């Protein structure tokens, strides 16, 4: 698509961190995200072990594992039917696993609703964006977390539309999202702008982990670059970013680690250095090279060559 209506990455990771700190003021916070230190020594922000999920007779996940670290972009890849979407649903609280454990920053994580995932500091941008088309950008940004007026009015449920709109305008500006907050509905926005609103929402609220499910699938080249730039920025600010993507080039461009799902299980893990298109594809489709343990699989506790 010609031109860009979304331009990300105009802010530094420091700005992202500051903004998050501002928003966190007055809300319940979990352990703050670890600041950027030696990439290899960071403890994992989220560890999922042995996740099983059945839908009727179909086992979508057969004991899948997953891990991501704060300050890193972890790509989750796999062919169709590998179980990526299911894993995302479980991590975001939309679905309950039948077996397995998940910990977030060391604490047990059993989300039974999207709200629970938000409480744990996890935000998700779904493939379909999950925006309410008839509400405006600011309303969508604050959906489910509306700001209330001060005092009695607030207790009665009255919203502070002005504050939300101002905050949204600021947030969008910082992130380079060109969605106009005076618009009455996001339906009137372009696809790229809607994307921007959804990503901004996750980035703005996410304290520990941000999951992005195929964020560039419907975008053009330039917009894709902007999204990837934003992904990098957010990770650099200390958030664990999980990127689900079909696009090998995107993954190779931005990911620090890559985890491969196949038929409901994790079959390979790569660091950026170890990964190549051939290896990734082989791992996804079950080719011989995929299982090479020495190069591909990394120890959970140990570091590995960056």
């Amino acid at each position, binding site marked *: 698509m010609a031109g860009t209506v979304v331009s990300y990455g105009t802010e530094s990771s420091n700005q992202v961190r500051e903004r998050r700190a501002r928003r966190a003021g007055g809300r319940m916070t979990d352990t703050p995200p670890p600041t950027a230190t030696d990439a290899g020594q960071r403890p994992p922000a989220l560890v999922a072990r042995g996740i099983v999920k059945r839908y009727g007779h179909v086992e979508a996940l057969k004991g899948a594992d997953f891990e991501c670290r704060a300050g890193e972009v972890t790509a989750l890849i796999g062919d169709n039917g590998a179980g990526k979407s299911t894993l995302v649903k479980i991590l975001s609280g939309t679905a309950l696993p039948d077996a397995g454990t998940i910990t977030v920053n060391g604490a047990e994580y059993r989300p039974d609703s999207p709200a629970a995932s*938000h409480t744990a500091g996890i935000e998700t941008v779904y493939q379909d964006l999950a925006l309410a*088309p008839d509400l405006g950008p600011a*309303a969508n940004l604050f959906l489910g977390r509306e700001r209330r007026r001060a005092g009695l009015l607030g207790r009665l449920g009255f919203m502070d539309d002005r504050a939300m709109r101002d905050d949204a305008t600021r947030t969008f500006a910082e992130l380079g999202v060109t969605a*106009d907050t005076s618009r009455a509905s996001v339906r009137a926005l*372009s696809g790229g702008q809607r994307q921007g609103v959804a990503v901004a929402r996750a980035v703005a609220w996410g304290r520990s982990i941000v999951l992005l499910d195929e964020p560039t699938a419907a975008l053009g080249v330039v917009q894709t670059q902007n999204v990837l730039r934003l992904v990098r920025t957010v990770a650099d600010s200390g958030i664990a970013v999980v990127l689900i993507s079909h696009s090998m080039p995107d993954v190779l461009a931005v990911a620090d680690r890559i985890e491969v799902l196949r038929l409901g299980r994790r079959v390979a893990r790569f660091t950026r250095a170890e990964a190549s298109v051939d290896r990734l594809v082989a791992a996804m489709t079950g080719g011989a090279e995929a299982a090479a343990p020495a190069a591909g699989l990394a120890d959970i506790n140990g570091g590995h060559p960056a």
Partner: protein
Amino acid sequence: MSPNATEGRAATAGAATPPPDDIARDGRGRPALARVVANPLFAVVTGLIALVIAFSIVNGSAFASVDNVRNITLDAAITLVLAVGITYVIVTAGFDLSVGSVLVFSGVFAMKVMGWVGGSSWPTALLGLLGALAAGGAWGALNGWLVAYARLNPIIVTLGSLGAALGLSLVVAGGADLVDVPASMIDLGNERVLGVPPVALIALVFAAVAGVVLAKTVFGRHTYAIGSSKEAAERAGIAVERHLVRIYLFSGACAGLAGWLALARFSTTSISGHSLDALNAATAALLGGASLYGGVGTIVGTVLGAFIPVVLANGLVIGGVQSYWQQVVTGVVLVLAVYLDSERRKRNE
């Protein structure tokens, strides 16, 4: 791979030239007039103004008198209360066919309560009101539970309660209308407070409060969200099922209030006279810009929409037009309004 400030600027610079394809269809560049026309309330406001002007010209002072305005307001009052409740429901992409029957049942129930308590003064009437609200709310909660948790189609559910509530009304009332409405309520129905009938005043104040709640509170916002995209609301952490039950409960309570007001106005439970109420209420909401697909609708629009059929009927009768034509005209107006609204929506996308 941290962003480079200049890189960022370059990207923004690229955004400065308006993109030909991926254009934000936000009409920011449209002239003010176009934006006014695009507003959902535009059609109903102009429609109402046009009707009022036309009838004033044709019928003169018979139409444009204080007495007639009073008549019109009173005629619209009860439908308005129902329409407020049904607007909330329609905004969630639901429907409530049962409001007429629930109105009747609430009236019957209130009569029984007041008869049991005895007396004919204010406390009795208020107890009747509480009874009516409770009865209406109960039916509404039942509807809501079936729609939200049992996941049944709202039309089917409320069709069922339409029949059940009416049948139960007949059972409780013993097959005939109850007519011993307490004197204090009859006074409410017939006297005037500073020239304004209390029934109309209550209806308008109620609508105003409901309108503020829908537009300005978290509850209202979540209502729009659920109607706009149930999934988005769920993913945002909104307790959708619980909210839906409350919505239908509210609609039922509106029917309860309307039932009590109807007792005050007509001095009878008029069990047979409310079969069209749900459709009239829905017409008001739809004329006012609510969408059956959910996510869109305002109480202001509903109030205006409630007045259109009433003004139409009033003006046509005063103008001496035969009864049959009134129905034809009202039906045509509704279809026209919904069509124009869908065109407006398409243009805005």
